């Protein structure tokens, strides 16, 4: 359960096969949903298609050191849905506030857990909630650069930054390893997360 991302560890063969099995399962499920009915012919043709897809377009190795935690997943899903609704309504109201020029900011958020998977999922979650958009990422330092709309001042910027860290924490508590959860207690690297 060692996930030291400073030197990217070689992905063990066993977990590569596990990743491929997960990918095949997901692809077969998509195939079945597209057909809409379960039949053995669909299952077998789906398996054939997904194997061909994985051979022709191999996926990059994903390091997944943690495990799925049901409570963490539920907590994340609930907060994600409420955030989605609240932020959608806020942005809709903003769109109808004629004569109001919204100000925005581009902020740097170096994540505390150095994992590509956490970086991707946090980016997706932040990006799906209205009002924030990923402008750039830095994989080496697992940093997200986020464009936030409708921030009036520095205080609002800092509030949003805390928000992103909370999203990261919820994701790690849902899928991370014990070591990754402990990393959440680390302070944000000095001079990186603060305004200069």
């Amino acid at each position, binding site marked *: 359960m060692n996930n030291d991302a400073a030197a990217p560890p070689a992905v063990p063969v066993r977990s590569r096969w596990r990743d491929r099995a997960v990918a095949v399962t997901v692809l077969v499920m998509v195939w079945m949903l597209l057909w809409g009915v379960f039949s053995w012919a669909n299952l077998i043709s789906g398996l054939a298609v997904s194997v061909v897809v994985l051979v022709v377009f191999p996926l990059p190795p994903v390091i997944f050191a943690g495990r799925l935690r049901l409570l963490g997943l539920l907590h994340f899903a609930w907060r994600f849905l409420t955030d989605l609704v609240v*932020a959608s309504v806020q942005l809709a109201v903003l*769109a109808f506030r004629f004569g109001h020029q919204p100000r925005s900011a581009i902020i740097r958020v170096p994540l505390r857990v150095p994992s590509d998977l956490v970086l991707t999922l946090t980016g997706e979650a932040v990006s799906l909630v209205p009002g*924030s958009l990923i402008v750039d990422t830095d994989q080496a330092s697992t940093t997200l650069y986020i464009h936030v709309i409708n921030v009036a001042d520095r205080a609002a910027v800092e509030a949003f930054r805390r928000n992103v860290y909370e999203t990261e924490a919820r994701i790690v508590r849902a899928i991370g390893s014990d070591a990754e959860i402990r990393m959440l207690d680390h302070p944000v690297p000095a001079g990186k997360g603060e305004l200069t």
Partner: protein
Amino acid sequence: MTADLVADILAGTCLISGALLSLAAGVGLLRFPDLLSRMHAATKPQVLGLLLILAGTALRLQNTIDITTLVLVGVFQLATAPVAAHMVGRAVYRARQVRTDLLVVDELAGDRAGEAPGPGDRVV
């Protein structure tokens, strides 16, 4: 109150609120000042808007084959919208199409200052 009536009312509520969110997205797209702000309007309210419309449609159709297709539409929307938004946002920033006068702070500018211009960068 029959179950059908309840389903109809729920479906109607979902469809109308989804349509309103899409309208807000359209208004925002026209009204917001620069490209990055417009990306927010273009990509975001319609995530929830589309999900609501899909839910409303599913309640009306109540047919397994159609519902599985609707689920797929929702899943692919959630998976692809952030990627598309990120690619446009990244290109916009590198092409210097951001209204910097409207930014409270830009922490990316300093980090990119030392880098050599890459493909897509507009050098001033």
